[in-house]
């Protein structure tokens, strides 16, 4: 990247940061702030999913599992009296442990059968949330989940989410630009060649899956403490589908893609004032259309337009 391009990028990030931080003071209504908070939370899960689905090229359908796990673990622990930062940390640690176990058990499966196994893990989480009524109250859900002491107001929580998504973005950008990101891309592009060159492919996949799971769990925990309520629906196929759509729409294997996708998926149906069922039809149609017409996603597409034909290959994320 040239010096001027770096300067432009820094300026863009500064403007974006100023806009995000100033947002509550622009006279935006409480509802707009609520939507921005939700899309930030969803964006964290999408950033995580992008590590496996985008960079590693491993089709992972576990957002339902890990968003659900993070939400329930942190909710239950905080309701048991743990301070919220501690309960969130514990939830992330739990997600990491579960992710390592799942990855060790199933990552040797071929291609997309791993995806179906992750889907079954999600089903297990949803079924546990639904049936362990002593802990989760089953389908009634858990009300009264406390907010962290530092962010009890909606505005403060918004800033918390902006900070968390910025941190998650920085983490993914760091991974993407490090040698680890390079190895991930090598595995995505040609797994056999990567293995032949001596890369510990399996270990890298376990690592990537775990990073993804922790970010998804963070998203779930932030959701639970924001809404102050959680029910088994959070672990459903719907969470998985929405998160997958965010990543695919924004652009697999790009740092900003999942965030753009999360914003689009949260805001566009609101702007259209779509009814819930119509919204899901819209999501489905968007998923089909993106895969068929713009498989690289919006961000690389935009980048090409802005770069005025300065054609970077779609797979190059640096």
């Amino acid at each position, binding site marked *: 990247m040239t010096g001027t391009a770096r300067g432009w990028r820094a300026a863009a990030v500064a403007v974006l940061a100023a806009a995000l931080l100033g947002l509550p003071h622009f006279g935006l209504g409480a509802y707009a702030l609520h939507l921005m908070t939700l899309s930030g939370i969803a964006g964290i899960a999408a950033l995580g999913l992008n590590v496996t689905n985008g960079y590693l090229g491993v089709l992972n359908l576990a957002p339902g599992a890990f968003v659900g796990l993070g939400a329930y673990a942190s909710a239950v622990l905080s309701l048991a009296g743990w301070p919220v930062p501690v309960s969130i940390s514990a939830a992330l640690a739990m997600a990491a442990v579960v992710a390592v176990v799942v990855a060790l058990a199933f990552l040797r499966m071929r291609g997309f*059968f791993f995806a179906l196994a992750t889907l079954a893990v999600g089903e297990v989480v949803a079924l546990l949330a639904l049936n362990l009524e002593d802990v989760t109250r089953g389908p009634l859900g858990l009300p009264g989940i406390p907010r962290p002491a530092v962010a009890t107001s909606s505005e403060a929580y918004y800033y918390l989410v902006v900070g968390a998504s910025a941190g998650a973005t920085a983490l993914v950008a760091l991974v993407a630009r490090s040698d680890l990101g390079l190895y991930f891309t090598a595995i995505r592009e040609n797994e056999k060649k990567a293995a032949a060159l001596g890369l510990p492919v399996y270990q890298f996949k376990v690592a990537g899956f775990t990073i993804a799971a922790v970010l998804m769990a963070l998203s779930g925990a932030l959701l639970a403490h924001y809404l102050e309520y959680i029910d088994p629906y959070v672990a459903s196929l719907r969470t998985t*589908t929405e998160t997958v759509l965010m990543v695919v729409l924004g652009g697999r294997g790009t740092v900003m893609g999942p965030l753009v996708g999360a914003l689009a998926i949260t805001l566009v149906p609101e702007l259209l004032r779509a009814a819930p069922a119509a919204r899901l039809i819209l999501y489905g149609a968007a998923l089909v259309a993106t895969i068929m017409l713009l498989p690289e996603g919006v961000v690389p597409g935009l980048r090409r337009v802005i770069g005025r034909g300065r054609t970077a290959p779609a797979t190059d994320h640096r």
Partner: protein
Amino acid sequence: MSPDLVIQLALTGVALGAIYALVAVGLTIVFGLLRIINFAHAQFLMLGAFLGLALYQRGVPYLAVLLVAPAMFGALSLLIDRGIIRPLLRSKSFQADTLLATLGLGLVLENGAQAAWGAQPYYFSPPPFPGVLPVGSAFLPTQSAVTVAVAAAVFATLWVFLHRTRLGTAVRATAQSRETAALVGVETERVLGLAFAVGSGLAALGGILLGTLYSTNFAMGSSLIVVAFIIVILGGPGHIPGALVASLVIGVTEAVAGGLVNPRFQRLVVMLVFLGVLMLRPQGLFGRPVGDAP
């Protein structure tokens, strides 16, 4: 715990297993030929049930419905095959692409169905086969017996088709190697279309039988599809007899676990059995060793 109850539960499980088998064999045929997982298979099942219901309510005899509706639906499914599946098959990442595209398609179909027909259940009325058959000291609803018989007839026909006809041989050859089959003159493109239509038709048939046994509603497919995926993987992807055995195992396990342990945990038991088997045999119970499949 009386032995009668166990027999009763096992019979329920066999009927459920027969429906699972139709759905899973459809899925596994599509996988065996096109090497894709059709995520919208669940919604094909649901749409097939609504199509069957519409015909039945217009006075078509039930057994004719079981024949006509899946055939109609199979033919219709070719639109999806041509419009969505085939264009994606050329890409290097076609497995992920088709899975995600059909996931989106399923979302459109399911919520479209909800918009069209609401969330309420519909019933085949009057029931085509009311009454029960005594089996020893237990009782089997006649509809369950019909379900099992229909599934058995379908699988027998499928076997004869695949193993005793020229076209069936072409299908098996294409499943083994698309290139080699094409070299010896098989029109593989048409064989893939046939496989997709047959697979979708089986989903529709499973849907009609499920809808008759229980009820027909917009979400009936998605509540069953993860189990169907599990059966396909347990049986070894693309392996028809494997899918049959796995269906019966899962159907009976689910019914017995539901009856003896706790209905709330039956799905959980199935998931845990599945995940446990996968850890030990990632290629499924009957699948070829990992790395062997194309």
